[in-house]
């Protein structure tokens, strides 16, 4: 078998501009709300205005009979329930349309149908719901146990699950400690806020006897699994399509009630139905995220070497578990990643996943890692200050050296490859640390205080079956699939189970086919996001698509390559071992034949096939990395800030990322993913928050109150790369899509700490608002 790596200059490593650009630049993208089907009726929901209330009655206006649907009107809908193997976990039933109780502001009570959305909203406003308002559970640390108010009446408490993750001997570490640092940290609840909200368009296809559901989702195949289960229909009678999706970031990687409800309505009403989420609905009901509380006690020696970390982690998970994974992994991931890139031997994390009367919590770029990194990296800085050493040096002291790789952490994470300390120093270089220190010492004319801060982390990516099984997940997204098909003219289609919503996979996956087959990416189409045309796959999340789907594309492409070589060699009358693929051809010792010619033989002129070779050029493969415990990207982020100590306002002067994600298939796209993630992390650090009041009312439900970073608030983001290829993936790739969002809050909080060091003030909560900065300054002053 001949080796054909680098069969194309458009292959792995090429910064190819993207195929998907053209339609978007022309305004010809096709998002769910762009799809027009005649006869479509619009849906608006009656949503609970109360965080916690019994529903006594729902009365629709008489003239609206047949256009208002409550749970009772859609009896085929079964409640959503997450199945989890996590020990001791509670899993509430979640009726997509509320039945006896509303458990968060915005929970859907009834669906209203009208020719336009405005009229549907008019109808929703005319539906009278009689509520008995109950006390809302809003404070996770306070209300998790012993609260008279229960989100789920039969639970006895408000805990989804509690779990301890530990290793080594934390009590021994405590006894041996020369330095003890204790802090509380809080990462506040926020939204993922993709620019396109959710949307569902559903209709019955009579010819194919199926219900077709267009959804703005990252995971179409699993949405199909859910619709089949919760509407009790065979999967063969359901098609789910995620067309263009305007950002996902995690919140669209979960099932939502609206998807089930719209499918049920389509089946019942026999005309298309459409629901397009508006921004207030999104900020109120689409998965919320982050919302972690940490108490951390760290033990160290006089040099700053970590001896142990003991932490309590509380996750405010909202009222229900989002299918399929529920809220259990958030605290679990935080607990397992908090030890970071350090040689920590003694650890205990007590985690509490709490039910509250708030919107359900879901995954968002980084999931549990941003909170854990915030807690760990702020703590490392405090240890450094306690021992009087530079935080960069204390990090380097504790980092796992490359010669100890692969390294299994105290929480059982198997770090595969990497040089963490070198990455840390690269980041400091990118920010020109000596220059920053000089500027800091010199002082600013306007009285602002300069600070520099860092945060280091590892990112588990493309983890497979073993990892998800260890989390107690009921659905194991352990592989991806690809069907690679060469058509009769030699052009190619890759059908994949992931869903590209900005990651550029229509381009990068074609680069992999180019790498393996020497086919021009211009002759390759990538089909994704449609259960009709792709074998089962899990979707795009968990920084997995390039490794998993790319791996499946590579395998399927190689299967086709083998067949191309066989047929091509036969046509060239040579031995397959003498043939290779390059530049759209199969090349032999005495000539070449194009893929197109081979394809013609394989389909239209099968008389030309070698004996024993079947027609068609069609291959389906699955892929899971050789290590299913994941491959670990890693990075250090650094921030330079100027803090105005009179107002609390902060300017981000500089930001750098030093990272290692192994082999990059398309470096231009990788850098853009990093920057996009970093800006979302900056959003978490400075702006994004959905506070809830004591009655459980969300207080940021429009973009007037929910702020996100704009271009004017940001410096250029510097990036430096290390390249340590993974050993267990195709081409040595590692996933990297989320990393950018993991460390900015920690790096920025450390920079603010550094800036305010003369005042002794710390901010240990995100977002770092002017109010919180001034409160910290006043607290340090003893006001």
């Amino acid at each position, binding site marked *: 078998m001949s080796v054909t790596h680098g069969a194309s200059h458009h292959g792995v490593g090429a910064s190819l*501009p*993207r195929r*998907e*650009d*053209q*339609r*978007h*630049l*022309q*305004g*010809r*993208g*096709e*998002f769910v*709300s*762009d799809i*027009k089907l005649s006869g479509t009726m619009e849906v608006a929901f009656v949503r609970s205005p109360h965080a916690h209330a019994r529903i006594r009655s729902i009365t629709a206006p008489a003239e609206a009979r047949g256009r208002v649907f409550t749970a009772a009107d859609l009896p085929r809908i079964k409640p959503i329930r997450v199945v989890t193997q996590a020990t001791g976990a509670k899993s509430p039933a979640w009726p997509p349309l509320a039945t006896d109780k509303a458990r968060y502001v915005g929970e859907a009570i009834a669906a209203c149908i009208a020719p*336009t959305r*405005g009229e549907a909203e008019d109808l929703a406003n005319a539906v009278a719901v009689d509520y008995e308002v109950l006390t809302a559970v809003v404070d996770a640390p306070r209300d998790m146990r012993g609260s008279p108010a229960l989100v789920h009446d039969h639970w006895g408490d408000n805990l989804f699950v509690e779990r301890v993750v530990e290793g080594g001997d934390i009590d021994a570490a405590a006894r041996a400690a020369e330095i003890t640092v204790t802090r509380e940290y809080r990462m506040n609840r926020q939204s993922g*806020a*993709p*620019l*396109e*909200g959710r949307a569902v368009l559903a209709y019955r296809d009579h010819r194919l006897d199926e219900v077709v559901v267009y959804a703005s989702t990252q995971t179409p195949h699993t949405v199909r699994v859910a619709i089949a289960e919760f509407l009790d229909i065979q999967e063969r009678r359901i098609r789910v399509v995620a067309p*263009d*999706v*305007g*950002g996902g*970031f995690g919140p669209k990687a979960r099932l939502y009630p609206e998807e089930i409800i719209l499918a049920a309505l389509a089946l019942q009403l026999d005309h298309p139905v459409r629901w*397009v989420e*508006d*921004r207030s609905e999104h900020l109120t009901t689409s998965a919320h995220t982050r919302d972690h509380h940490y108490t951390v006690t760290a033990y160290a020696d006089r040099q700053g070497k970590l001896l142990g970390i003991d932490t309590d982690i509380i996750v405010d998970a909202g009222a229900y578990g989002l299918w399929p994974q529920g809220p259990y992994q958030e605290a679990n991931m935080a607990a397992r990643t908090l030890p970071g890139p350090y040689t920590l031997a003694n650890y205990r994390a007590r985690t509490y996943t709490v039910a509250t009367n708030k919107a359900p919590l879901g995954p968002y770029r980084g999931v549990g890692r941003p909170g854990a990194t915030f807690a760990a990296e702020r703590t490392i800085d405090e240890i450094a200050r306690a021992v009087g050493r530079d935080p960069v040096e204390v990090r380097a002291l504790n980092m796992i050296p490359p010669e100890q790789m692969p390294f299994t952490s105290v929480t059982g994470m198997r770090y595969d490859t990497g040089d963490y300390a070198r990455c840390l120093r690269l980041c400091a270089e990118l920010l020109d640390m000596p220059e920053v220190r000089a500027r800091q010492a010199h002082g600013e004319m306007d009285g602002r205080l300069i600070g520099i801060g860092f945060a280091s982390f590892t990112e588990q990516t493309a983890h497979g079956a073993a990892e998800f099984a260890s989390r107690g997940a009921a659905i194991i997204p352990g592989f991806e699939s690809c069907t690679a098909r060469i058509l009769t003219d030699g052009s190619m289609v890759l059908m994949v189970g992931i869903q590209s*919503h*900005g*990651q*550029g996979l229509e381009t990068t996956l074609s680069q992999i086919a180019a790498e393996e087959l020497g086919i021009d990416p211009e002759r390759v189409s990538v089909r994704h996001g449609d259960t009709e045309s792709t074998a089962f796959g899990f979707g795009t999340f968990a920084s997995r698509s390039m490794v998993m789907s790319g791996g499946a594309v590579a395998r399927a492409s190689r299967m086709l390559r083998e067949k191309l070589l066989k047929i091509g060699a036969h046509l060239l009358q040579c031995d397959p071992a003498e043939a290779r693929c390059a530049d759209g051809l199969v090349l032999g010792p005495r000539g070449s034949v194009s893929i197109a010619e081979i394809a013609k033989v394989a389909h239209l002129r099968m008389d030309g096939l070698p004996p024993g070779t079947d027609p068609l050029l069609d291959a389906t493969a699955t892929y899971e990395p050789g290590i299913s415990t994941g491959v670990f990207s890693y990075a250090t982020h650094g921030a330079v800030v100027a803090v105005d100590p009179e107002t609390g306002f902060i300017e981000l002067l500089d930001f750098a990322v030093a990272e290692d994600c192994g082999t990059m298939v398309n470096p*231009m*796209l990788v850098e*853009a993913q990093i*920057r*996009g*993630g*970093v*800006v*979302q992390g900056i959003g978490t650090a400075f702006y994004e928050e959905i506070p809830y009041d004591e009655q459980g009312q969300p207080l940021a439900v*429009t*973009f*007037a109150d929910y702020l*996100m970073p*704009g*271009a*004017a608030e*940001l410096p*250029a*983001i510097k990036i430096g790369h290390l390249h340590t290829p993974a050993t267990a993936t195709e081409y040595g790739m590692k996933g990297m899509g989320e990393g*950018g969002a993991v460390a900015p809050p920690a790096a920025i909080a450390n920079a603010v700490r550094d800036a305010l060091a003369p005042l002794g003030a710390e901010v240990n909560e995100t977002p770092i608002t002017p109010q919180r900065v001034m409160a910290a300054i006043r607290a340090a002053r003893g006001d």
Partner: protein
Amino acid sequence: MSAIKLTLNGVAIADDVVPRLSLVDFLRERRNLTGTHLGCEHGVCGACTVLVDGEPARSCLILAVACDRHDIRTIEGFADDSVMAALRDSFHRLHGLQCGFCTPAMLITARDLIRRGKAGSEAEIRAGLAGNICRCTGYTNIVAAIAATARSLAGGNVA
């Protein structure tokens, strides 16, 4: 229902609309021009930006009925516009888009910055993009694409 007459992407059209209908919904639902997107409906995110009488405006904050006797241009209406063509080329080469949802509005805003001579420096461009949210790109490549376009157009203008 109110009768309206307006110029849409260079073509005179007439239609009947209910007063509550926003311009963006008129464009998307009645005229099948879905390149203009809705991200918030409160005028903050900028995804709905179109040109009204040649100037960028939020189509979510304008009623269709108020556009009677006005000139509207959407992303679908720049086929012969050389600045837009240059911007599209730069955005493509420099990877200035990811999910594509903010892109039509970004292009219209960028074109306006260049037209008004407000794309001379990175800081100026960033300030000019304040009203266009992007959640995917982190803005770096968008700013670079606009700067590159402005430079290439300025270079091409021989005095």
